[in-house]
């Protein structure tokens, strides 16, 4: 449960005034080229990619349905001087991000090759396996600050479980990542074996919002503009939170830790209030739920901070953080993407040293057991 903040805030509690070692829960490494994967990808699938390419749930090949603000959705200053896409050069990432921002741990979130959208489930599993090995070889083993996740596609549950077992034996991965937009809402029972295994292994389930699942990204259909689509990340993640809670995932797996990544957190209070209100009225429809939805949210879910909401008045952000819960928030930068948050300047609201320590480090250290 979140703490009560019971002392008045001082105007001079400027976030930039203090310096903390931070845990950054959303750092995006990129393949320098697809050939980087060859040493981890069986010849059969290398050949398959050459001959048939990806078979995605998205409507267009090798692109996204809208131009997305800047090339590869990256910061314009994040292109490595050595060539290759943003996020593909470890030395440059260290120099531009990890060292100057004093990142103690950075959690890798890989988005290459539309990793969660592959319709050919065996190809998808082969890519996920290769990416999982590549994360260790190219990143974690070269910089121990960087932590890898086990990426699996939950629509092939048996393949996902096999990959989780393989990686769990290696013992270096700190969470299990599944698709934010699977074929069905994430609370569906067909996906539960993955959640069961995550709970047994005590590995948090990471869900990085974004991408395309074959369904229109909003309940209202396909947006016309990127700014409209980007807005829909909040709707998507709110829908997935409702699905997981109301279909009974945290009730069935009370020790499962679920981390929503890159969904922001401004939408959470109203989503939780509404769920509670409806639960009181329609309790008999979902008798498998023993507690109020908000209680599951406050015990089983964490939310990374980026993209942070920026109300005009700092006290509104402060109130929002308190509604969500200081202990629910994990700092994330989204480096090197265009909507990157700088930990020194992104939190434009007063926080005590203890609160800053929680959001920028201690909460993540507890969830991921660093």
């Amino acid at each position, binding site marked *: 449960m979140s703490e009560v903040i019971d002392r008045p805030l001082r105007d001079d509690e400027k976030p930039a005034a203090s310096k903390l070692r931070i845990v950054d829960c959303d750092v995006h490494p990129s393949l320098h080229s697809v050939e980087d994967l060859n040493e981890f990808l069986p010849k059969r699938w290398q050949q398959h990619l050459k001959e048939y390419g990806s078979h995605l749930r998205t409507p267009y090949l090798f692109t996204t349905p809208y131009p997305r603000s*800047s090339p590869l959705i990256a910061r*314009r200053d994040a292109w490595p001087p050595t060539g290759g896409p943003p996020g593909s050069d470890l030395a440059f990432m260290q120099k531009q991000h990890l060292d100057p921002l004093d990142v103690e741990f950075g959690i890798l979130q890989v988005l290459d090759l539309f990793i969660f959208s592959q319709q050919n489930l065996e190809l998808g599993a082969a890519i996920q396996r290769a990416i999982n090995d590549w994360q260790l070889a190219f990143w974690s083993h070269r910089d121990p600050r960087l932590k890898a996740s086990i990426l699996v596609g939950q629509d092939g549950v048996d393949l996902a479980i096999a990959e989780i077992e393989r990686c769990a034996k290696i013992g270096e991965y700190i969470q299990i990542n599944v698709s934010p937009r699977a074929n069905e809402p994430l609370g569906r029972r067909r996906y539960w074996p993955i959640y069961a295994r995550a709970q047994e292994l005590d590995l948090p389930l990471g869900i990085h919002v974004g991408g395309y699942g074959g369904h229109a990204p909003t309940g209202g259909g396909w947006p016309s503009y990127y700014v409209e689509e980007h807005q829909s990340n909040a709707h998507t993640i709110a829908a997935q939170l409702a699905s997981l809670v109301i279909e009974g995932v945290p009730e069935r797996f009370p020790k499962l830790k679920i981390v929503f990544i890159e969904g922001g957190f401004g939408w959470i209070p109203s989503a939780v209030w509404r769920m509670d209100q409806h639960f009181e009225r329609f309790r008999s429809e979902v008798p498998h739920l023993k507690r109020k939805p908000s209680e599951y949210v406050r015990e089983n879910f964490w939310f990374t901070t980026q993209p942070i909401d920026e109300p005009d008045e700092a006290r509104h952000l402060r109130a929002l953080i308190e509604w969500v819960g200081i202990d629910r928030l994990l700092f994330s930068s989204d480096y090197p993407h265009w909507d*990157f948050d700088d930990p020194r300047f992104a939190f434009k609201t007063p926080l005590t040293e203890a609160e800053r320590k929680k959001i920028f480090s201690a909460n993540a250290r507890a969830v991921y057991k660093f």
Partner: protein
Amino acid sequence: MARHIVATISEIPPGGNKVVEIAGRDIVVFHVNGEFFALLNRCPHEGAPLEKAACVARLTSPEPGVYERSRVGEMLRCPWHGWEFDMRNGQSWFDPKRVKIRSYPVAVERGEELQKGPYVAETFPVHVEDSYVIVEV
């Protein structure tokens, strides 16, 4: 206010920029459409380096689907979050009263004129036959 010689005009090509440090500040000097503009090299939002900003046009629209471009290259789009600023005076496009980048007066003067004045040449000797970009800080 001191005047600082920061570059020869040929050193900053059209569409390009140069970052100079004056009195402890990072200042970026842009060259657009034959004019020079000097701004603090830091977005007021989260501190992104403006030397990496996109120099874009002002884009306006009387209605959806109709677009008009003007002042090509004179608008800065922050390299991180895309906040747009008028290079001429540092004003933000979306909230000109509250958000702006610090800007500095710029002049272009011939070397023969500079020989007379008490200017601060930061990095190179001044030749009378060249023209120089001067930033006032």
